């Protein structure tokens, strides 16, 4: 009997060792690939190009879609931010997804909206649209507001926006996100510059808005978040976008374009069926379906990412809200893997089936489970006194130093290409965060992911709900500051 346990233990240990080694090698490769991509992007980046496109009558039209559910605290501020975007041909569609607060009334009043007889064609089925509004003020001619019955998901709201979109590309963002004024110019560039493939989606780096300063919806000063939980998320975003997504983009293997900001090919999105309203990870699910559609129809496609930060989003500041967000993400991942498991290691789906899916399955879906079983194994071994502590500590130190190194490299790539933070103190502040991440932040991620999987397995009911916004920090106006000083 002892022998069986011993053998099982050895198999587990060796399995985890191989798993860990492959994961670490993958991260090392991603670090190298991302360096190549980020450098190539930085070399090609040129402000003059943006100005050329800005004044061009040949620029392709883009629809900006922003679903809103009870965003009354920041809705006016955010719509104003969208109205300041630089682009020659674009429209903004705000989808009020049955908000129970006064979001719609605020918009009607602020932007002088009037109901219009809009020929709405439901190419993708959604909950009924109640009314569509346009502004009677020519200054807001780009703005359209769709008021619809709550569909209990962001996906349903965005689908309604896609149905009403006039242009061949749409940018999907959250209404609480603040976009860089050149976002549309930057996102359409890879679509227009691709030589042989059809770019079906483009994404860009997202950052945390919590301690940044904004003026009338425009980011004026970027800072790493002062609070610990958002700061962990800032570091995580830098690692995920600058290192992860940029590494994958070199191989044309981007697994997902973030729901916070992404530009999509409308035709492919509609033909793929739009966002799945029953999914908790609707952004990743749509991307997977678009890739699947492209493969099934022999369309040579590409998904591109750019390392520039174009979007700032408010991060959860309490563990409770953070828990809700991450549980939802994990549940979405589990749903996605279950729904599209036919693509797993299926050569018919090219890199999607042979690289992206296995990576997501082994190193995104299984990682929290393996980590959790590892901890249990450690505890059991500890109880029976079977742990060689010096060896265990060396291995722990190895994983710790390696994770700090990978995150620091991501910060380095970001810093070498774009110096977003004004002072070196802010960078130093950010560089210290990875040292705590391993002990304080990572365990939370694992627990919330497991919770998400549990909800998926048990089919617990849940909605996309409200993130409980606090609003953004405004740049103090000189007059207001003087008055406050008196």
């Amino acid at each position, binding site marked *: 009997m002892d022998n069986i346990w011993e053998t099982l233990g050895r198999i587990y240990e060796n399995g985890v060792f191989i798993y860990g080694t492959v994961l670490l090698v993958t991260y090392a490769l991603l670090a190298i690939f991302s360096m190549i991509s980020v450098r190539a992007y930085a070399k090609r980046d040129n402000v003059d190009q943006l100005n050329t496109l800005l004044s061009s009558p040949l620029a392709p039209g883009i629809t900006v879609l922003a679903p809103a559910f009870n965003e009354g605290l920041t809705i006016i501020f955010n719509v104003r931010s969208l109205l300041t975007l630089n682009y020659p041909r674009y429209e903004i569609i705000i989808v009020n997804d049955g908000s129970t607060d006064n979001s719609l009334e605020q918009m009607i009043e602020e932007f002088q909206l009037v109901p219009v007889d809009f*020929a709405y064609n439901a190419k993708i089925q959604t909950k009924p649209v109640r009314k569509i509004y346009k502004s009677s003020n020519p200054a807001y001619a780009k703005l359209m507001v769709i008021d619809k019955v709550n569909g209990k998901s962001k996906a349903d709201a965005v689908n309604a926006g896609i149905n009403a979109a006039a242009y061949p590309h749409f940018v999907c963002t959250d209404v609480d996100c603040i976009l860089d004024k050149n976002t549309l110019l930057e996102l359409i560039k890879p679509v227009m510059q691709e030589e042989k493939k059809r770019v079906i989606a483009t994404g860009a780096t997202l950052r945390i808005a919590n301690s940044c300063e904004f003026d009338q919806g425009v980011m004026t000063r970027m800072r790493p978040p002062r609070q610990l939980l958002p700061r962990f998320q800032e570091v995580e975003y830098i690692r995920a976008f600058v290192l992860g997504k940029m590494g994958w983009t070199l191989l044309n293997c981007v697994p997902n374009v973030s729901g916070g900001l992404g530009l999509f090919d409308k035709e492919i999105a509609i033909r793929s069926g739009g966002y799945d309203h029953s999914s908790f990870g609707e952004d990743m699910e749509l991307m997977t379906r678009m890739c699947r559609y492209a493969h099934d129809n022999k369309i040579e496609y590409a998904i591109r990412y750019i390392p520039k930060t174009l979007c700032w989003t408010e991060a959860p500041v309490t563990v409770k809200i953070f828990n809700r967000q991450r549980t939802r993400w994990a549940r979405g991942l589990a749903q996605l893997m279950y729904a599209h498991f036919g693509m797993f290691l299926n050569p018919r789906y090219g890199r999607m089936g042979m690289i992206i899916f296995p990576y997501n399955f082994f190193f995104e879906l299984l990682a929290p489970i393996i980590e959790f079983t590892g901890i249990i194994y450690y505890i059991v071994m500890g109880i029976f006194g079977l742990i060689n502590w010096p060896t265990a500590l060396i291995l722990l130190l190895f994983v710790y130093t390696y994770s700090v190194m990978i995150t*620091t490299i991501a910060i380095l790539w970001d810093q*070498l290409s774009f110096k977003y933070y004004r002072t070196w103190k802010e960078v130093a502040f950010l560089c210290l965060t990875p040292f705590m991440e391993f002990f304080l932040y990572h365990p939370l991620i694992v627990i919330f992911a497991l919770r998400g999987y549990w909800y998926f397995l048990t089919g617990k009911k849940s909605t996309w709900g409200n993130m409980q916004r606090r609003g953004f920090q405004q740049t103090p106006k000189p007059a207001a500051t003087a008055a406050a000083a008196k």
Partner: protein
Amino acid sequence: MEFSFYEFRYAPLSIQIAGIFIVVAIVCTLLAYFSILVGRYRAYRQSERLKKLHPIIDEQLMEHILLNEELASDVPADQVQLPLESFQQPVFEKKWARQALIDRLIHYRNNVRGSMGEQLRNLYIQLDLDKDSLKKMKSRKWERKVQGLAEMSNMNMSIADVTILPLTNSNNRELRAAARHAYIKLSKNEPFKFFDVVTEPLLLWDQVELFKIISTTEHIAIPNFAQWITYSSNKSIVSFCLKLVVHYNQLSAVPAVIRLLDTKDHYVRADAINCLGKMKVEDVEEKLVHMYNSQPLNCRLEILKALGRISSGKYVDFLRQEFLHATDFEVRKHAAKSLINNKWAAKGLIQELIDTATAENKLILKHSMNPLIKF
């Protein structure tokens, strides 16, 4: 220490590897910090240097060129003395300072014309800054080549066709684009000659950049684009020329565009229909209506749009037919829009349609009539 090394040497392989990687990770992390520090320091130093240098350059340029009364009254640049000695300071022997000077000269040259612009160019030549740009063009790095090409073309310096034409077909997209821009701007004889030699498709981005160069370059001889519309085998060149035909309202190219209606490629055909609609070529309406039923959806939509743009009032019944009987929502919407555009000839008909149409068709008509809705 000796004891630890002994222990490590006889530890299992995985522990030895882990030990080595711990050292590597710590060294890499420290190197990353160092690189961040160095990167920030360099950027800071460069910005401080430029902060000091820019006012010096600006002051000299203001005094001797931009506020020069003779140049302001358009005295030819070659009759006004150049302030060379002002720029022969030791700082301008340094590479970064010469680059800053080139950038500043280009910046000002983009904002002034006439004798002042000419004098800025003279200064660029007299200070041998053109040699710096030429050197960049000979570099093996594509980004340096692009920089050199951009500087030369901004300063209107001629480059031999043999040097530049091969670059217009380079594998590197940025280099290819920069060479094409420079060629259009600098070629004295045939600025559009590279249209004949382009083998790769013109990307949409290339088209945007070329369009700007062509439409903003002064004294450029605009050719008849019909020659490429008729003879080019490169579809993207044809498509781009159609856009230029619309921009320059080049009526002489219309017969060539009409011939394109028989092309097999339906994307090019749709572009040709779009071009004819935007140029309001009334004579082509009959042919468009005649070919309508045999066309794919993109061409049919373009035909409907063209009928709306031309707005001759002759095909109101055809539009009504499509609006009432087409099954595709987009077709009905575009037919309705074109009907509204032809309303001077179909006032009664539109009212009749509003009164009798189905709820959905009525909504489409109201949509098309609402000035707040553009599409």
